[in-house]
């Protein structure tokens, strides 16, 4: 798909996700997953040497975190960190993951004292997917 079409799609997807988030509507995480996919497609189409390529790479990782898909966020970040990318992008990607990890640790303070971050992230994912009763199952 052409980058112009992808840019138009990502604009619409970010807009929808922001509107859902503003109203605290739960499917916002699905909307952010869509944003992450489109940002990933843009990142494939645009070289890391281009500013828009770097914006798309940060966007793909960030939107995956907003969608609560930590595995995807880390996989994307690992792939982008393995590229011959400018140091500023690598620093930014690590910072995005660190900030999310800190936010997660403060959101799940008790869990973070007793479990690793990965375990806490898995707990959050299961809670998001199945609700409180799902955890007891």
């Amino acid at each position, binding site marked *: 798909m052409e980058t*112009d079409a992808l*840019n*138009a*799609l*990502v*604009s*619409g997807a*970010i*807009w929808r996700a*922001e*509107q859902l988030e*503003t*109203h605290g509507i739960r499917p916002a995480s699905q909307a952010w997953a869509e*944003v992450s996919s489109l940002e990933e497609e843009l990142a494939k189409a645009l070289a890391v040497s281009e*500013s*828009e390529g*770097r*914006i798309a790479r*940060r*966007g793909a990782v*960030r*939107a995956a975190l907003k969608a609560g898909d930590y595995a995807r966020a880390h996989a994307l970040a690992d792939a982008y960190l393995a590229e011959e990318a400018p*140091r*500023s992008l690598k*620093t*930014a990607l690590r910072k*995005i993951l660190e900030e999310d990890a800190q936010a997660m640790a403060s959101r799940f303070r008790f869990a973070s004292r007793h479990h690793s971050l990965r375990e806490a992230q898995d707990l959050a994912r299961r809670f998001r997917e199945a609700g409180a009763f799902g955890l007891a199952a």
Partner: protein
Amino acid sequence: MHPRLPTDLALLMVGRAALALERNAHAQGVRLSLDLERVLSSGMLSWPGADLSKIDQHDHNRITEDGAEAVALALAHRHRAWRVIRRMQREEHADWLLEDAREGVRQVVALEISGVDRGSILARLSEKLAQVAKSTDVDQRWAGVVGFEEPIAALHFAKREHRGN
């Protein structure tokens, strides 16, 4: 004007700009004061009619913010010939990424936009300039603020905020 701006989004923003203007009792052809990088001038605003009886179906703040985006993006194209590339996530410190293709060299512009329903836009403009100054991987950083009480739109350039890394 902005071929990469999705039509549904453009219509929604224009519709909310119409609501923001009409709830402030403005009519078609209202005078808009312009502050383009501290050069003052004025223009005229026209829009498709809004149905104020349905205004309660919209979030109050979204009317102001989305309406401001419609006015600022129109202004950015009319006065700087910029075109939208894409919307950005808020952590990029700007709402829109645009391109400036004048003078044969393509430059990428980060534009942060905000709206003020009542009162002065000055404090908001300072706030938004500080925000967009943090934007990275762009050639230019700009903030656009639109006030709806006495229609005014400002578009100012922000100097890049230099950080340690």
